[in-house]
């Protein structure tokens, strides 16, 4: 360094790069993950929960009898460990992974389409992925290998939807409005197909609400692992495109003049976002608005640099979905409601807010 140039003044209007925000978000999420197992459908004393967690995390060296002092159910301490570790924590991890996937997909889609309202749910990519997954369940395809076949079909559904949107975006009517309307139409259509399929499935009526409203229940670590692996790989790849997304905000031509292969990058990003979305929705069904809200939250606190927005949206998305799960348990103790209800509850007003505010300024995030 050793240069006499003074650092540029920062103003409130345009927050600078704030990488430290990522650290804060990550730490907050970690703490939330650790304490969330306290909440659940069955009452377990918080101290017991924390002891079990530490016992499991330390590989059994800490708290050799984690249930000591509390009321132990008939299934014994092993039963409690199963509830806390296998059921709750896997559910929590899935919430985080799914939220992260949806968040980073939403951030990417907003950048690719240069539109603050883009989101995997609103554009129908979530519906496409869910439809793909539901086909596997309804027609009992590869029952023994369902944990692998399910995401595969979800990918096909999500990427197919993404391709339709890409074509719509590229047509000469490819305005922002066309894009959103195409997405909304696709989304409704695919949801309708999905509902019909579930109601009249050869396997008998399935839980429609599970798929249409999103659900974190009845999961295992394998599903967690698959979702986690795909979201991690695709999400990491997405996060490496922060700079290109920054440049794409100037318009594809300007980005190209600066050295970005706009067309190739946009196709790649849409593909990766579709894969990430598919992994997120394959086991949980449609969860709305996480992808829409999360990137905007990051923009507010950390500025609009996509190198921060993308990982930040993943962290906020994970936290958002986890918070939805926890709030659901606080508000309705004893039952885990479909998680999509809570995200839509928070997300829909936010969407309306963005929609109305957008008339004033065409800025995407920070006003």
């Amino acid at each position, binding site marked *: *360094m050793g*240069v006499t*140039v003074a650092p*540029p*003044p*920062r*103003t409130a*209007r*345009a927050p*600078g*790069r704030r990488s430290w925000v990522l650290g804060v978000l990550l730490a907050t999420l970690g703490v939330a993950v650790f304490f969330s197992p306290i909440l659940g459908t069955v009452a377990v004393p918080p101290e017991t929960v924390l002891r079990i967690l530490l016992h499991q995390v330390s590989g059994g060296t800490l708290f050799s009898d984690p249930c000591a002092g509390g009321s132990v159910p008939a299934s014994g301490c092993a039963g409690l460990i199963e509830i806390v570790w296998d059921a709750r924590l896997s559910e929590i991890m899935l919430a985080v992974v799914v939220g992260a996937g949806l968040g980073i997909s939403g951030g990417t889609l907003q950048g690719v389409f*240069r*539109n603050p309202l883009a989101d995997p749910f609103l554009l129908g990519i979530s519906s496409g992925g869910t439809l793909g997954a539901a086909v596997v369940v309804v027609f009992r395809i590869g029952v023994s290998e369902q944990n692998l076949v399910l995401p595969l079909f979800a990918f096909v559904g999500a990427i197919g939807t993404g391709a339709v949107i890409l074509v719509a975006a590229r047509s000469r009517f490819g305005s922002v409005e066309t894009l959103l309307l195409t997405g909304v139409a696709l989304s409704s259509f695919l949801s309708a197909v999905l509902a019909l399929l579930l109601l009249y499935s050869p396997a008998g009526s399935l839980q429609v609400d599970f798929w249409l409203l999103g659900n974190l229940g009845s999961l295992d670590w394998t599903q967690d692992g698959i979702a986690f692996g795909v979201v991690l790989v695709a999400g990491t790849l997405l996060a*490496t495109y922060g*700079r290109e997304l*920054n*440049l794409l*905000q*100037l*318009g594809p*031509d*300007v980005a*190209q*003049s*600066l*050295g*970005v*292969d706009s067309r190739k990058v946009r196709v790649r990003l849409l593909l990766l976002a579709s894969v990430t979305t598919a992994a997120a929705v394959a086991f949980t069904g449609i969860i709305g608005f996480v992808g829409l809200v999360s990137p905007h939250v990051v*923009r507010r606190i950390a*500025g*609009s*640099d*996509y190198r921060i927005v993308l990982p930040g949206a993943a962290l906020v998305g994970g936290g958002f979905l986890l918070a939805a799960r926890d709030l659901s348990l606080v508000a309705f103790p004893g039952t885990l409601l479909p998680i999509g209800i809570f995200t839509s509850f928070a997300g829909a007003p936010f969407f309306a807010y963005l929609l109305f505010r957008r008339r004033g*300024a*065409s*800025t*995407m*995030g*920070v*006003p």
Partner: protein
Amino acid sequence: MTEAPESALQLRGVTVRFGERTALQDVDLEVPRGQFVALTGPNGSGKTTLLRAALGFLIPQAGSVQVFGSDVRRLSIAERARRVAWVAQEENPRENALLLDYVLYGRYAHLGWLQGESARDRDGALRALRAVGLEERAGDGILSVSGGEKQRAILARALVQEAPLVLLDEPTSHLDIAHQLDFLTRVRELSRERGVTVVSALHDLNLAARFSDRIVVLSRGRRVADGAPADVLSEELLARVWGVVADLRRDPRTGAPYLLPHHLVPPSTAGPATFLGKGPVHVVGGGGSGAPYLRALAEAGYRVTAGALHLLDSDLETAESLGALTAVEVPFAPIGDEVRERLRTFLEAATAIVVAPFPVGPSNLPNLEEVRRRLGQVPILLVRRAPGVEWDFTGGEASALEEELRHGGARSVDGTDEMLAALAAGPVAPPAQ
């Protein structure tokens, strides 16, 4: 590729079609290093298409585009970005990036995969912001600065891109006059200081003439004129390419030519032979009597000459504002020989002479004497004088001359419409004597 090519940009026989429409037709253009070229032409003449072809954004149906000796289509997108920078007419960024970051975007093509900008890049960006007078605003959001500041930030970005060729597409069309001058002054300075080659589409011919080393004119996809501003800009070019009648002047301070547009070439007269307008018609007047006739003639597409007039005469002002050539004498002095000689050349060049109802005294009587010399050789229109207005201050000499003109075949007209009608009726046959 090995030897340093002399030309920054070279187009050979470039033809671009969009469906049925031909946007560029067999265009050759060679831009040497360091030159500031203004690319101009009417709307739809192919300026933007040429720039986009130079950027490799579109593939010509025929011909080749080379930047610094390499075919632009064979360069990778990043390689191209290191050689050619682009400043669009207007950018509409969708995210509120810091100005500093906005400028740093220009470093993209120089950075490796996932490589962040170094402190050196940042210093370079700050220097570039200083060069465009924006260092104070480095920490502001791009969406909060004015249009002029945004264009300057984009120019700074082009600087850190370190491309030796900068293409600008109407960079000033959304700016007010002060920002236009400011922006182009900076572009020219930067081009001279850094030896950067600049090719800029510019609507405004006067700005083009003022700032560029060379003007290239496109019309319907063809290069129709090319050269130094003083050589290229002409009334003839404006009439031919833009269909506009204008006067060419010279800026007394910079010496740059500038055009003063008047009106469109009238459709009835549009054509290669008549594009310069009809005439010239000479108007003899004074004391404001000639002004309506001068204006009406100019409006109808006639070129006009006027005189002899005295300095400070309001007719002189009108004539000059219309771009007319004039014969001028100092106030109150009798028309001297030199001025009389000039008047004579105007009268001899004129296709018609209009005598406005001007007051005649001994000092400007030579006007009528000179008009009399043309009697029988060119149509003369005498504007009828209002009755009861005293105008002859020569003791009857002027009245006698007018009488002589009338009898010799000069036609009396009443008002500007009748004058135009008489002129349009064609060359009134010189009266048979």
